[in-house]
């Protein structure tokens, strides 16, 4: 299975055209189920009341922020080990989507925290770790576009994605360690709420819906990146006057 042929925009277009109906369709179906069961067809939580509905977007967003980062690290490894152009382009394409979901997770976390804990931001171990993950996304995107040559940016940020992937568990541990040290008695220690079965359906539907959505958008964004690389190469070629060997 030679992955290299998908690096050319034309081949990748055929692949994404084949996959698009499944990914976009899956996203539409699961998100519809999620919205319906999340907002309308599930009971309020006996303890948190209606605010539990925020969890149906907050938790899937948290899942997406980690899922996309895992993809970023895998793409990074592929870019560094096999120097595969598709892996280099994929990193740059999906990082903003991961950052957007992480931002969404932070804001919905804050919206959930306000009624629960009375403040917009709580240095809860989980929320703090998501905040740090958000910084790592910003660092990845900044490093990726900090070079004139796209390949250089892609490979440098690939190294950062891997260094980040190794460090994130340790950072998570140190934040938990820090949190337990400074556990203010005043804020009730909100453990993960008891998730009774009726909540599982919307939670699961939204998470799967987001994942399908991410795959669909990734296909679109990777195609766009491949085209941009091609455009860049054409402009370089025009300047240098050297011929381009293979056409799209």
């Amino acid at each position, binding site marked *: 299975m030679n992955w290299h042929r998908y690096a050319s925009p034309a081949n990748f277009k055929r692949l994404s055209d084949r996959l698009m109906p499944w990914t976009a369709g899956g996203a539409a179906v699961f998100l519809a189920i999620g919205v319906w069961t999340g907002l309308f067809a599930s009971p309020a939580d006996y303890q948190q009341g209606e605010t539990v509905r925020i969890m149906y977007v907050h938790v899937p967003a948290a899942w997406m922020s980690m899922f996309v980062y895992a993809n970023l690290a895998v793409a990074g490894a592929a870019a560094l080990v096999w120097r595969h152009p598709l892996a280099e382009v994929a990193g740059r394409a999906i990082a903003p989507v991961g950052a957007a979901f992480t931002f969404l997770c932070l804001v919905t976390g804050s919206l959930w925290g306000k009624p629960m804990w009375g403040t917009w931001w709580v240095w809860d171990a989980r929320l703090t770790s998501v905040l740090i993950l958000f910084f790592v996304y910003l660092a990845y995107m900044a490093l990726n576009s900090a070079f004139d040559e796209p390949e250089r940016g892609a490979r440098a940020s690939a190294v950062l994605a891997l260094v980040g992937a190794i*460090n994130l568990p340790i950072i998570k541990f140190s*934040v938990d360690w820090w949190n337990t040290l400074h556990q203010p008695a005043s804020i009730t220690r909100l453990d993960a709420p008891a998730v009774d079965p009726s909540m599982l359906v919307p939670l699961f539907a939204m998470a799967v819906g987001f994942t399908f959505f991410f795959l669909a958008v990734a296909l679109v964004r990777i195609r766009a990146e491949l085209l941009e690389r091609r455009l860049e190469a054409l402009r370089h070629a025009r300047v240098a006057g050297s011929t381009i060997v293979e056409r799209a």
Partner: protein
Amino acid sequence: MNAALALVVRDLRLALRTPAETLTILAFFVIAATLFAFGIGPEPQALARVATGIVWVVALLACLISLDRLFQSEADDGSLDQLVLAPASLELLVLAKCLAQWLTTALPLIVVSPIVATMLQLPAQGYATLLLTLLLGTPSLSLFGAIGAALSVGARKGGALLALIVLPLYIPVLIFAVAAVEAQIAGLSPRPHLFLLAGFGVFALTITPFAAAAALRQASE
């Protein structure tokens, strides 16, 4: 081995010949700390409460500032090619650069830190542990900083790219170090935090050579 040693000696000689660089880092360290005093107010109790955190955050930022030129200066004058093309392993040379940077930046910071801690009214029983945490923690700052510096060689100028890359990696060092000193001040044992701090240092020591060397090889393509 003597290639790495030669590199450390050269960098120390360069630092001694331009002491201004080290002195400006130290000046930043002291000035930034005093800014916190202006911000928080002069009452000793108020300052003592946050002294450890301030000293460590400002030391961390001072270390970060000194790393910006660690490899970029080599790339600018063409020395980077010679380092990458040296028969000795680039991973070893990266550690040599980190050691030289630590000696020329972190060590002076550690020497000056008691003065800054005094200005910030750090409780007396905290000084020994503060110095110990600085000794154990600053190597990690130099090591992870070197990865950031290597990654940003050749990047477009300006902005806090290095800070954005490196600061998240500094969080565990800051947490364990401050926790150790505050435990000591509270009369508890700082040992668990110190072990974690040292353990994190060993972790940094293992991954930095490979990550930074890979980044430098990319930079000199």
